[in-house]
């Protein structure tokens, strides 16, 4: 059974419980603390150690009649677990697999840190995790329990310098639990479940919102184009995808390979012929 996330951004209140629950369950280190000045978003982006990220979009404008229009969009971003995943195709070690729940999963003990998945994700989700530093002050687990660090480091922490991203809580799903973020979400903005059911629910939600005069679209419930197919983690948006830092035209990188290999072959054959003439005539 393929499972996934339906993130309904109209329900998000920006509490970041998903971010916290994800960090806690997956034992992910803190990213340090930095004020960005970008609304209430000091997380900024998904990374190797941040697998949920709540975006805050403040929209304020004044119309010609002097009326103030303001809107606050919040959206919890996550790995999309694409039907055709660029990272999975690019991974040279087979560390990135599709698991029995249809999710794209990185096996940290197999990953060799080449970083090719990082540049192959059309959504900019995957990133490398910095080498684990038990002495590091930025690592908040270190302050919780020192003994724990000696014996019970997670595979990610032990290896260091490997790629990291949302696992769709593979371990929780295995024992029948709901992923941590969905469990923690207080408004059901993050909904977890069977994909077919989620898609049906999402489409009904769009209809309801449209009736109420809200312009809502689904991102990734159906094919997003570019060869990627649908997304196992899809979103309900009320503005253009770019507003939420999502691509309007994502492309599956491997679709460019035939053109690339052909061009290289043409160049090689042409130069080989030229070389043959040069050496034969000499």
């Amino acid at each position, binding site marked *: 059974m393929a499972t996934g996330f339906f993130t309904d951004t109209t329900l998000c209140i920006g509490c970041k419980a998903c971010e916290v629950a994800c960090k806690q369950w997956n034992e992910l280190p803190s990213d340090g603390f930095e004020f960005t000045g970008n609304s209430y*978003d000091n997380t*900024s*982006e998904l990374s190797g150690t941040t697998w949920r990220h709540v975006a805050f*979009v403040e*929209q*304020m*404008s004044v*119309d010609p009649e002097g009326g103030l*229009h303001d809107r606050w969009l919040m959206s919890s971003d996550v790995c999309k677990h694409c039907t055709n995943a*660029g990272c999975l195709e*690019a*991974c*040279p070690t*087979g560390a990135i697999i599709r698991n029995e729940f249809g999710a794209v999963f990185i096996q940290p003990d*197999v*990953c*060799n*840190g*080449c*970083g*090719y998945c*990082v*540049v*192959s994700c*059309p*959504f900019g*989700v995957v990133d*490398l995790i910095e080498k684990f530093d038990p002495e590091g002050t930025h690592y908040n687990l270190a302050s919780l329990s020192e003994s724990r660090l000696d014996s019970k480091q997670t595979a990610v922490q032990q290896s260091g*310098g490997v790629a990291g991203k949302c696992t769709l809580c593979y371990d929780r799903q295995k024992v029948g639990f709901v992923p941590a973020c969905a469990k923690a979400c207080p408004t059901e903005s993050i909904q977890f479940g069977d994909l077919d059911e989620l898609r049906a629910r999402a489409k009904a939600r769009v209809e309801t919102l449209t009736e109420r005069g809200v*312009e809502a679209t689904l991102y990734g419930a159906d094919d997003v184009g570019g060869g990627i197919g649908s997304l196992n983690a899809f979103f309900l948006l009320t*503005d*253009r*995808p*770019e*507003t939420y*830092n*999502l*691509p*309007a035209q994502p*492309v599956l*990188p*491997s679709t*460019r*390979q035939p053109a*690339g*290999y052909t*061009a*290289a072959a*043409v*160049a*090689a054959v*042409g*130069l*080989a012929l*030229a*070389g*043959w003439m*040069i*050496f034969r005539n*000499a």
Partner: protein
Amino acid sequence: MPNLPPNPDDALMGAASRNGRTEAVVPTYYERPMLKAPHWEWNVVTYLFLGGVMGGLGLIQLLAHPERDDERRLKRTARYTAFILAAANPAILITHLGKPERFLNMMRIVKIKSPMSLGVWGLVFYSGAAGANVVRELAVDGVLPRWMRFVAPGFMAPAQALLGAFTAGYTGVLLSATANPFWGSGKRHIPAASVCSGLASASALASLLSTLEGNHAAVHKLERLEMVAGAAELLVLNDFKRASGEYGKPFFEGKRGERLRTYTVLAGTLAPMALNALGQMVKLPKPIDAVRTTVASVLTLVGGYILRDSLIEAGKASARDPKAAFRQPR
């Protein structure tokens, strides 16, 4: 995307009401990058560069005819050099991965859809072919027992050339088949330029070594090959500039563009072409001619390295541009 609702943010940004008309402005998320930049440094640049050079040497060792004395010596030099580079490249990749064992993880699987996986296997097989051909050279030279030349039967020469073409070409596909907007915009140009640049650099390295050996007849042919490959590279880069448009700006414009024009185009291709043309037309005294070849070869090699470095650096800049990332080239 047609019929998009106007973004209310536009009015606040002051971008929408120029000339009293509403312009469609692509919103960004606080102008933050959408994509992750490659974290590739000198080691990956060197890995790609050497992939091109060893690929080119694969062709040169095939072109050199064993029955002409100068080409016989060239064949040997090309094979030894190719093998050394093929042996060095995994070591360079390991400096990037951090631990030697991590290279072995690449050997777990063969994945047709991953240029990184195919490339590593290409490198492994290339090393095999290059190694067999080196054994043959050693056997022919009498260093090893003569019967050992059968380790590399005749078909090993074209095999090394074919694998070489792949090693040079995949270093381009490795970049162009990613989500990076600039790299993606060169889906044909980057692989073609990688092959051309690889052969130009290989010819330069072979002519440099042949000059040191005093094999001037081979240098003459190699420099013609280098000119052809260099000219092809310039044609590809010129067309790439036209075809890549906005996506190509981090590569062709600004500081990186200037560096590319100075080191790769002018000093790295046009200057050696002029020096090589001079060598073809005028018979210079031998010591001066050796200096001419050396300068031309070093310039070509530096230009080839700067080309790879510029590709990587422009990729980093392109990844930081959310507007390019929102609309990825097909």
